[in-house]
């Protein structure tokens, strides 16, 4: 069920009604039922995978929690009789036993993700190598259907497990409650990757119907549909025309495709997240924000603090930090400082960790070299940017331009163009083609083509461009108004008639200008594929 399908809209509307009709203590059970039904409708066999992840995570976390509790009870009971060494040894033993459970569960779940998502990618690479070495033998691909949302729910579950292991949160004692955390349907297919301690605060209710929440939620859902249907799915045609016929559309069209794809991805992904957050809000549940005006970022590090925040923080908290303080990295740091000097040596492990994290981020997005190169390029740009930091600082001190509007605008445009250029790897079918197409922007730009009617051959009519321009203007206006309060909060003091009129106009805009129904390809959300 796509979020934009009629059946999904009917599904959530019915759920909203039943949710507030059932006794409140049963609300979370209804949500679990709805989430599993949502998953079942996608494919009954997917339930096996999500159940396996849920049960294994529950058991491991529960056991880890029990071990910690037993250890605490033992310490409390023998507080006076235990020596410091005994307490330390006991803690070590506990950590070792907990680690074994943690590693086993992570191996199982990441292993499952790896098998489902990367087996055919690995086989394709082996076949490539065999061919390169002159072998005629080719390995057969496996017929594996990637379970919906597996990347998201695996990361969310493992985040929970790590939190329990670190003692940051207590283990959930009820497997069904954990099952709801893992499978909560609005965020199952494209995130955000929620943290247990945050989501659990509101996930299990009980929730009284609160008109402010419901109205805010509905507004957010409408806003999401507006972005997805009016902008993302409309511009999709032009993006596809450009990237699917690279022999025809080069030079300036690569630039156009790059910018259009940036807009499409933004509207698509943030639209999807708006729908997710909106649905949760109607249900009285708070799901974390995943974006914070990413195209106002002034550098790439800032951009990644604003874009897909839940994924960025997941990699930071569960991969980058543990990796940075791991024994091999500490050893590498010591050795690098000794051999390369203090200044350069201390950066080596940081750079290595950065590259590992970005490699993982890349491959998390998809099993192809495009995503790996995309991830590594992000890492390289961040590393270069960090290395040049002293130069920037000196430049800013010398010229005092940092807070000037024009310079800020320059930084924003530069960051947007840079990120858009790297995003080209999402678009073209392979890495060499992406580099080649990127190159044509400079070698054969042919800017004149744009003004000789070819822009109208991208599958968009003049009316489409008009709708897109208006849609972008509305998004920009709402983005500017984000500070100090969200658009919804700014509308709140207005008379109810004005607020409802705004909602009504948004609804009309979606119904009339949305790219949906017969004649349009029902495009799934881009992040559903990850």
């Amino acid at each position, binding site marked *: 069920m796509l979020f934009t399908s*009629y059946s999904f809209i009917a599904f959530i509307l019915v759920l909203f009604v039943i949710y507030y009709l059932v006794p409140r203590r049963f609300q979370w059970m209804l949500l679990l039922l709805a989430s599993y039904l949502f998953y079942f409708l996608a494919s009954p066999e997917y339930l096996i995978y999500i159940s396996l992840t849920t049960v294994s995570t529950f058991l491991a976390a529960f056991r880890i929690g029990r071990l910690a509790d037993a250890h605490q009870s033992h310490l409390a009971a023998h507080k006076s009789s235990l020596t410091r060494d005994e307490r330390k040894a006991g803690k070590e033993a506990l950590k070792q036993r907990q680690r074994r459970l943690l590693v086993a569960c992570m191996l199982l779940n990441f292993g499952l993700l790896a098998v489902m998502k990367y087996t055919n990618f690995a086989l394709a690479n082996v076949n490539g190598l065999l061919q390169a070495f002159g072998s005629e033998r080719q390995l057969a691909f496996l017929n594996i259907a990637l379970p919906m949302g597996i990347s998201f729910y695996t990361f969310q579950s493992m985040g929970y497990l790590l939190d329990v292991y670190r003692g940051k949160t207590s283990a959930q004692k009820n497997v069904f409650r954990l099952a709801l955390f893992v499978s909560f349907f609005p965020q199952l297919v494209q995130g955000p990757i929620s943290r247990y301690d945050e989501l659990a605060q509101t996930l299990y209710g009980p929730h009284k119907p609160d008109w402010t929440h419901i109205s805010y939620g509905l507004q957010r859902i409408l806003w999401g549909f507006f972005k997805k249907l009016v902008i993302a799915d409309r511009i999709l045609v032009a993006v596809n025309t450009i990237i699917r016929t690279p022999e025809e559309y080069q030079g300036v069209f690569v630039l156009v495709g790059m910018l259009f794809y940036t807009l499409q991805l933004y509207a698509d992904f943030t639209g999807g997240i708006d729908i997710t957050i909106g649905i949760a809000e109607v249900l009285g549940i708070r799901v974390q924000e995943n974006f914070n005006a990413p195209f106002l970022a002034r550098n790439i590090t800032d951009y990644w603090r604003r874009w897909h925040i839940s994924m960025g923080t997941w990699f930071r908290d569960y991969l980058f930090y543990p990796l940075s303080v791991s024994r091999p990295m500490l050893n590498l740091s010591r050795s690098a400082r000794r051999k390369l000097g203090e200044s350069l040596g201390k950066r080596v492990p940081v750079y290595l960790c950065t590259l590992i994290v970005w490699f993982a981020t890349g491959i998390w997005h998809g099993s192809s070299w495009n995503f790996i190169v995309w991830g590594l390029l992000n890492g390289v740009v961040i590393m270069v940017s960090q290395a040049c930091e002293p130069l920037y600082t000196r430049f800013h001190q010398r010229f005092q331009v940092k807070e000037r509007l024009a310079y800020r605008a320059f930084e924003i445009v530069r960051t947007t163009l840079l990120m858009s250029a790297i995003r080209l790897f999402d678009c073209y079918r392979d890495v060499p083609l992406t580099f080649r197409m990127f190159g044509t922007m400079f070698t054969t730009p042919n800017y004149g083509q744009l003004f000789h009617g070819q822009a109208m051959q991208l599958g968009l009519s003049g009316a489409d461009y008009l709708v897109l321009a208006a849609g972008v203007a509305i998004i920009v206006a709402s983005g500017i108004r984000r500070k100090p309060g969200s658009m919804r909060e700014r509308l709140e003091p207005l008379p109810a008639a004005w607020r409802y009129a705004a909602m009504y106009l948004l609804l*009309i805009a979606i*119904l*009339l200008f949305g790219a949906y*129904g*017969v*004649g349009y390809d029902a495009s799934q959300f881009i992040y559903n594929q990850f």
Partner: protein
Amino acid sequence: MKRLKVMKALLAVCLVLGSLFLLQQLVMPKYVRGIVEGSLVASYYEETTPHDVIFIGDCEVYECFSPVTLWNEHGITSFIRGSAQQLIWQSYYLLEDTLATEKPAVVIFNVLALKYDEPQKEAYNRLTLDGMRLSRTKLEAIRASMMPDEKLIDYLVPLFRYHARWSELTWDDVRYLFGKKPLFHNGYYMRVDVRPVTTVPEGKKLPDYSFGDNAMAYLDKMTALCKENDIELMLIKAPSVYPYWYPEWEEQVEDYASEHGLVYLNFLEHQDETGIDYSTDTYDTGLHMNLSGAEKLSRYLGPILRDTYVLPDRRDDPELSEVWAPKTAFYEQMKADQLAELEQFGYLKSLGARPPDQP
């Protein structure tokens, strides 16, 4: 206070629904120019008196028979419930829809639709189904007709289907927001222009000449429905030279008609009796009849209907005469208008025809 709030909420809901309805009316195609066939099905609901004969089928009925001629020359009241590429299940449900308001003596079904065993094209589905009045029968017609990528809700809320027309709205969309422009003559689509048959195409060899199970099942249902309602079902094949009518198809229809005791009339085999002249009686090289051809076929069919099914001549009925007089006037007026247009331009520009020198 609470009552006031409820009233306000109800008013708001009514305003929203009302405006959405208006919006839907606005974007729905009006079919008043170019492809006007989309207005055929809905035109039936403007009828005020019952009919002796109901024709059902595709373009081979709504462009080949003239109810006004049947009335003027034989006193038979009739209506054509046909539309472009109307599939047999759509004909069946249109018949069911008709029987909800009247019970004709004779139903005439054109058998060309038997060649299709499954839905063909969304655009043609819409031409037939959009005009149907909402009922259980319409829902069943939609379910039977939908292509795999179609959704029932797109038919129930046409705004979802036609919303993209916002960029091509014309003054006609406002002008005919609620009313319809009269375009047809009891379901007959008049064309006075002539484009003679130049070649008679040979039929391509088919892997299987048997009509599909689904199509035949609906023919069975139609036969049963007529029998249940004590209505005579007559099968016909209009004299179009293409799509090619295979002898194997002819044989199956003949067998079916004789097995079920139905009259079957293949006009292709009665060219001498009908007087159809393919150099003057078709407006599109033999696919459809023009007015001259339709009138010839109606003149030929009238006595057959009268004699076979003992249909009375109703021209003496004052109420019916009063109803049919303006129909006849409109018919004559349109005929005169089209002839004048033909005289002026050499072709029927207003109906999207091509100039004679264009193939």
